[in-house]
């Protein structure tokens, strides 16, 4: 008997009910004995529910048949039956596990009242029932059980606003339930059964006006329970006011049950698939738009919850519409588990932080552990790797593309971007320390459920990766390395830096040394260059919590990016790079805000890339990167989308506004990596796309020509904007933007010579921008200033830095003898060859402008009058200088023997674009002329040597009088603003009068107006949420009426 009980009841899915109900009924009795015995019973029951679900799901995953549960010993349809298959098992296990964690989180409140314990238990059982039952009326009962338990738990707090919100919730869901009941009874009238499978089998009987109206009632009810825009104010109010414990369970548990109810009744609602998709899509897009205006943390989570359910609904309808139900576990399952874990975690965290306004979340600032948890949950919600939402969105978008449902791709990506905007704005607010903040009082152990949710996100994300990809270990390598480094984050800074360098060098070498062609070249730049520049991180010995693990992830993800064979692998590494670099930027002193801009533009770029890959998959049926070219008629669109994504990431004109802030505010040594190395990933992407698509003759040259212009305009305006910068790092930032513009143009040429020029410029930019940013890091370290007019005369204190800067500037500007000359020469040659004369003229102009700002950098920082307070400054630390001089060495070698560089570049290109460089000894020939680098080197050395020797001679023979720095007589006047006395302040004022109109911040103004406009739109879209329960109820009835009219109700 006991054995029968265990094997036939307890271990069966039915055991979930038995355990929950049995324990639920006994809780009051146990409570009479002792409250703690009731709590023990409560947890035993919840754990039992998790275990039963887990055991049975495991059996099914191991190949067992789905379990059919009959009741009353009578076969369906005459008695109620339940089913526990793969979908049911997954949902039930997920909901029960999150309920168990939620109970842990909410225990301090739950334990106050025995009835709260039993209500919680039975609520969870109700959700289980909604998932498992196969009987329509029984489904109604379980919906009601769940609802009533929810009502009571909402009302537990008994403050005025919770009660008001709760009442609205009851009214709304009661009306929805009434609709459900009406639909059910008329379906029974038509089919003579209440069994859902029975109804599906007799689908043809559900027709005519009654069939139409009955299914309409059913559909409306389920949709309303999923809280569609705009009939969802009642849900938002509860999310805002109710305790996090119950809000989390409503958001992830109850919604999951209702979603599953929709899933299982969908065969009856197949006439409404388009309506369902529209409702889901609109809800996702609009609630995320309205979320932009929200600054209450809990209500914000509400908007996000509603949006996620909308996305899930859209995904469900679209999957069924496209007939790809086999993908449902990945798409709906992935989105669901992602939402479940991330949203529950966030609701709990909101409970613990206990601050209403998102601004007040700044109490978390300076708490790395808490911020890490917060960041993981947010990243998951936005769909960043490696979390389940990433994989699910990938499959969803590619399948939408394959099915030709392009508008939905726009909705999904735009909605995701909006969601990222408000979620990461919130994160940004949490990062910024404010003086008024009192430290939070969260106890460490109370974070356990949140941490477990975050951990499960990683686990499920990996699980999904295994389903989709074979090479998961390599894809996850950066994360593994990052985790290992993070575990060692308590070590001293220098040691961590060293460990990171070792890990990245070893891992990077292993990942990239066997690559060939273009990938190999980029391997040297991205990984080798990354390690070389990261040597400089040794100049700071402070702890830098989180910095080294993130840098490790970033550099290794660059390595895996190069190894990617499929677009999914590429996109995974790409997003990982985005996320880790974003987090690194936030670590800078004022980095939080610019990092947000950086992230949003990066995500927009990523979504363009995703759309491009999805379209390519749709056209070619393959995820291989090598198959990008087989995309037939959509080739032009694929190329444009991918190129747009990569250009945003290079800071192309118009979408460049993230560049100055990001480069300016990131940590100084990291800026060097960001500009010299990370930006090259976008160049790699662009080349990849160009190689597969851009060079194809059937694509036409128009997209490439446009790209050429974008590149050159970026170069010109980047240089112009750099000219008028006072901030030394922002000057270099604009310079980077401009230099990348040349490279983009070089790629756009789609010719052998053009690409050689582009690659050469890429290498060169890495070399000199690395030096410049590291040199500036030294200057900033010593002076603690970034405004150039506050410096001057540093040549005396920092001679090595000066030399490095000067060489870098020469290498950058196109003058002989250093590498920059070759780059410009190649580029001009390639443009002439192609006949792009206008562009060549523009390139000439912008080179001249670039010379202006570089001259200023050198002049105002190192030459001129030294500031009094800078008299005692020392040279930059040796560890900063070492990488600079290593780079100078490389520059010198390549300057003297460019063939060493050009030959590998040329041969890497030749598989794509035929052609080779014509050498005559050591001089390179084109149809325009030749370039003999060693000779130029010799000539220049000679030209410089003669005056130098002459001056040395003079100094030995003539008597030199030294002039003291302050041996200057001022005129009678003293200006008001001290900086006005500095020649370097507003250095190029005269050019400003001539050209300044060109660099008015139009792009910034444009993007600001976009933000403002979205906020206005959001404000007008949320007027429906007036807080009045009757208005909310009216919307629900209207939903029915509108669905009736839209689906042709008048033609009955």
């Amino acid at each position, binding site marked *: 008997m006991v054995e029968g009980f265990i094997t036939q009841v307890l271990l069966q899915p039915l055991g979930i009910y038995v355990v929950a109900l049995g324990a639920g009924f006994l809780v009051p009795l146990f409570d009479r004995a002792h409250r703690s015995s009731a709590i023990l019973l409560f947890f035993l029951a919840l754990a039992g529910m998790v275990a039963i679900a887990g055991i049975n799901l495991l059996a099914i995953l191991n190949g067992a048949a789905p379990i059919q549960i009959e009741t009353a010993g009578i076969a369906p349809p*005459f008695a109620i039956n339940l089913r526990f298959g793969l979908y049911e098992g997954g949902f039930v296990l997920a909901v029960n596990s999150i309920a168990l964690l939620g109970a842990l989180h909410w225990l301090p409140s739950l334990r106050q009242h025995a009835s709260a314990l039993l209500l919680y238990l039975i609520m969870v059982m109700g959700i289980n029932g909604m998932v498992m039952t196969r009987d329509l009326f029984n489904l109604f009962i379980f919906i009601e059980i769940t609802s009533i338990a929810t009502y009571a738990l909402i009302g537990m707090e008994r403050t005025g606003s919770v009660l008001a919100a709760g009442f609205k919730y009851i009214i709304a869901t009661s009306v929805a339930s009434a609709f459900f009941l009406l639909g059910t009874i008329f379906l029974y009238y038509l089919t003579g059964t209440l069994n859902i499978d029975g109804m599906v089998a007799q689908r043809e009987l559900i027709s005519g006006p009654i069939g139409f109206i009955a299914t309409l009632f059913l559909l409306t009810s389920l949709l309303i329970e999923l809280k569609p825009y705009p009939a969802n104010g009642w849900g938002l109010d509860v999310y805002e006011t109710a305790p996090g414990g119950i809000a989390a369970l409503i958001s992830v548990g109850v919604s999951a049950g209702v979603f599953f109810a929709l899933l299982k009744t969908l065969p009856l609602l197949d006439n409404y698939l388009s309506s369902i998709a529209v409702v889901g899509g609109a809800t996702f897009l609009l609630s995320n738009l309205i979320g932009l205006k929200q600054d209450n943390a809990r209500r914000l989570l509400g908007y996000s919850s509603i949006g996620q359910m909308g996305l899930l609904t859209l995904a469900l309808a679209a999957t069924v519409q496209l007939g790809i139900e086999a993908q449902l576990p990945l798409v709906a399952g992935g989105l669901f588990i992602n939402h479940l874990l991330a949203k529950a975690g966030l609701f709990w965290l909101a409970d613990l932080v206990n601050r209403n306004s998102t601004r007040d979340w700044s109490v978390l600032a300076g708490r790395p552990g808490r911020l890490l948890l917060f960041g993981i949950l947010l990243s998951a919600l936005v769909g960043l790797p490696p979390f389940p939402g990433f994989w699910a969105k990938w499959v969803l978008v590619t399948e939408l593309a394959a099915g030709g449902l392009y508008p939905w791709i726009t909705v999904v990506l735009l909605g995701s971007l909006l969601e990222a905007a408000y979620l990461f704005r919130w994160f940004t607010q949490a990062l910024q320390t404010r003086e008024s903040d009192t430290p939070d009082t969260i106890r460490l152990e109370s974070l356990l459920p949140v941490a477990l949710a975050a951990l499960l996100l990683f686990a499920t994300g990996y699980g999904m990766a295994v389903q989709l990809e074979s090479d998961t270990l390599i894809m996850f390598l950066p994360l593994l390395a990052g985790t290992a480094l993070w575990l060692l984050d308590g070590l001293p800074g220098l040691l961590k830096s060293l460990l990171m360098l070792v890990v990245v060098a070893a891992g990077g070498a292993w990942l990239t040394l066997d690559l060939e062609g273009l990938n190999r070249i980029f391997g040297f730049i991205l990984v080798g260059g990354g390690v070389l520049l990261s040597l400089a991180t040794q100049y700071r010995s402070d702890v830098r919590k989180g910095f080294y693990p993130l840098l490790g992830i970033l550099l290794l993800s660059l390595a895996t990016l190069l190894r990617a064979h499929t677009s999914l692998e590429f996109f995974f590494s790409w997003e990982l790079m985005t996320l880790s670099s974003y987090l690194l930027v936030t670590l800078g002193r004022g980095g939080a805000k610019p990092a947000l801009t950086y992230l949003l533009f990066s995500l927009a770029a990523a979504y363009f890339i995703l759309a491009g890959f999805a379209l390519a998959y749709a056209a070619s049926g393959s995820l291989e990167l090598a198959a990008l070219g087989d995309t037939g008629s959509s080739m032009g669109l694929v190329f444009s989308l991918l190129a747009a994504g990569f250009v945003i990431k290079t800071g192309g004109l118009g979408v460049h506004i993230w560049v100055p802030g990001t480069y300016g505010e990131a940590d100084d040594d990291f800026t060097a990596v960001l500009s010299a190395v990370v930006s090259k990933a976008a160049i790699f992407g662009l080349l990849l796309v160009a190689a597969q698509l851009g060079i194809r003759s059937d694509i036409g040259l128009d997209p490439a020509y446009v790209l050429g212009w974008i590149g050159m305009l970026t170069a010109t305006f980047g240089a112009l904007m750099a000219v008028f910068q006072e901030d030394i790092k922002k000057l270099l930032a604009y310079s980077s933007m401009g230099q990348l513009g040349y490279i983009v143009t070089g790629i756009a040429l789609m010719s052998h010579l053009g690409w050689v020029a582009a690659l050469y410029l890429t290498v060169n930019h890495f070399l000199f921008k690395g030096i410049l940013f590291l040199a500036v890091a030294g200057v900033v370290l010593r002076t603690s200033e970034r405004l150039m007019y506050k410096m001057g005369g540093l040549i005396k204190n920092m001679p090595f830095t000066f030399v490095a800067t000067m060489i870098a500037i020469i290498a950058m500007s196109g003058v002989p003898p250093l590498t920059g000359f070759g780059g410009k020469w190649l580029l001009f040659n390639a443009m002439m060859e192609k006949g792009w004369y206008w562009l060549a003229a523009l390139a000439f102009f912008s080179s001249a402008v670039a010379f202006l700002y570089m001259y200023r950098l050198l002049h105002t920082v190192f030459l001129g009058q030294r500031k009094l307070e800078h008299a005692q400054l020392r040279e930059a630390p040796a560890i900063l200088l070492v990488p600079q001089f290593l780079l100078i060495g490389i520059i010198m070698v390549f300057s003297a023997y460019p063939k060493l560089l050009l030959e590998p570049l040329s041969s890497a290109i030749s598989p794509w674009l035929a052609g080779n460089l014509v050498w005559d000894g050591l001089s390179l020939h084109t149809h325009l002329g030749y370039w003999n680098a060693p000779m130029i080197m010799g000539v220049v050395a000679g030209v410089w040597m003669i005056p130098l020797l002459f001056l040395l001679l003079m100094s030995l023979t003539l008597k030199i009088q030294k002039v003291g720095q302050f041996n200057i007589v001022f005129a009678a006047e003293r200006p008001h603003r001290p900086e006005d006395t500095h020649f370097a302040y507003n250095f190029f004022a005269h050019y400003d009068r001539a050209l300044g109109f060109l660099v008015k911040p139009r792009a910034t103004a444009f993007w600001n107006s976009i933000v403002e406009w979205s906020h206005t739109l959001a404000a007008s879209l949320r007027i429906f949420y007036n807080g009045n329960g009757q208005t909310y109820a009216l919307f629900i009835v209207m939903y029915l009426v509108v669905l009736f009219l839209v689906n042709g109700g008048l033609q009955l």
Partner: protein
Amino acid sequence: MIKRIVILLVLLMLAFIFVNLAASYSEQTSLSALGHYYVEQGPSELGAANLVTAVVVTYRGLDTLGEVTVLFISAAGVGLLLRRTRRKDDHEDLEQGDRAEETAIARKPASEIVETATELLLPMVILFGIYVFLNGHLSPGGGFQGGAIIASGTMFLLLALPESHISRLMIAITESLSGFSYVVIGVLGVILAGGFLDNRIIGLGTYGHLFSAGAIPLIYVFVGLKVGFELSAVLDRFRKEDSGPL
């Protein structure tokens, strides 16, 4: 005013939908397949003369267990919402104890007629309730109906004697144990008969007798007790709902 017009319009549209519904409806002239099976097989299969009871307790037993659960959590929810605010002693949970009525507000006594009638009728009402749930498998009625009748007796009592004392402890024990027993009977169905909530765990007995239809009368006893006590508890909680901070 505009809002009213909108509401009117929306409801008119809903009325239009309903008209469509009613216009296509025609009364059934024979039983549905499901109904046909129950009427034909119910008496012999389950031994219940009242076919609604057969459907409620066995064929759709899971619904009924859910229904009992709904009542249980409603009562718990009402209790949770209307619990007394803790006053002086924070350690003692007043809502738990029977001493809740310590602070009960004095109420106007009922008239003599009501009091006398209650004293006269109460035993009969309760007896009738028990009769109704015991005979649920044979005649109209059942656990819910019987329970509701018992609760109406409580209502009488509360109207006539507002100060009367209802033991929370007794209520808690009865509702817990009867609910738990119901689950146990359901589980026994799996082990001893065909499935969860199968009423054939004991012999079906002689058709038409009180002790027949297997576990149905037993289940109805538990349901009747549970419903009666739970509804009484709900009534009692509304009565004792404290006035709260003004």
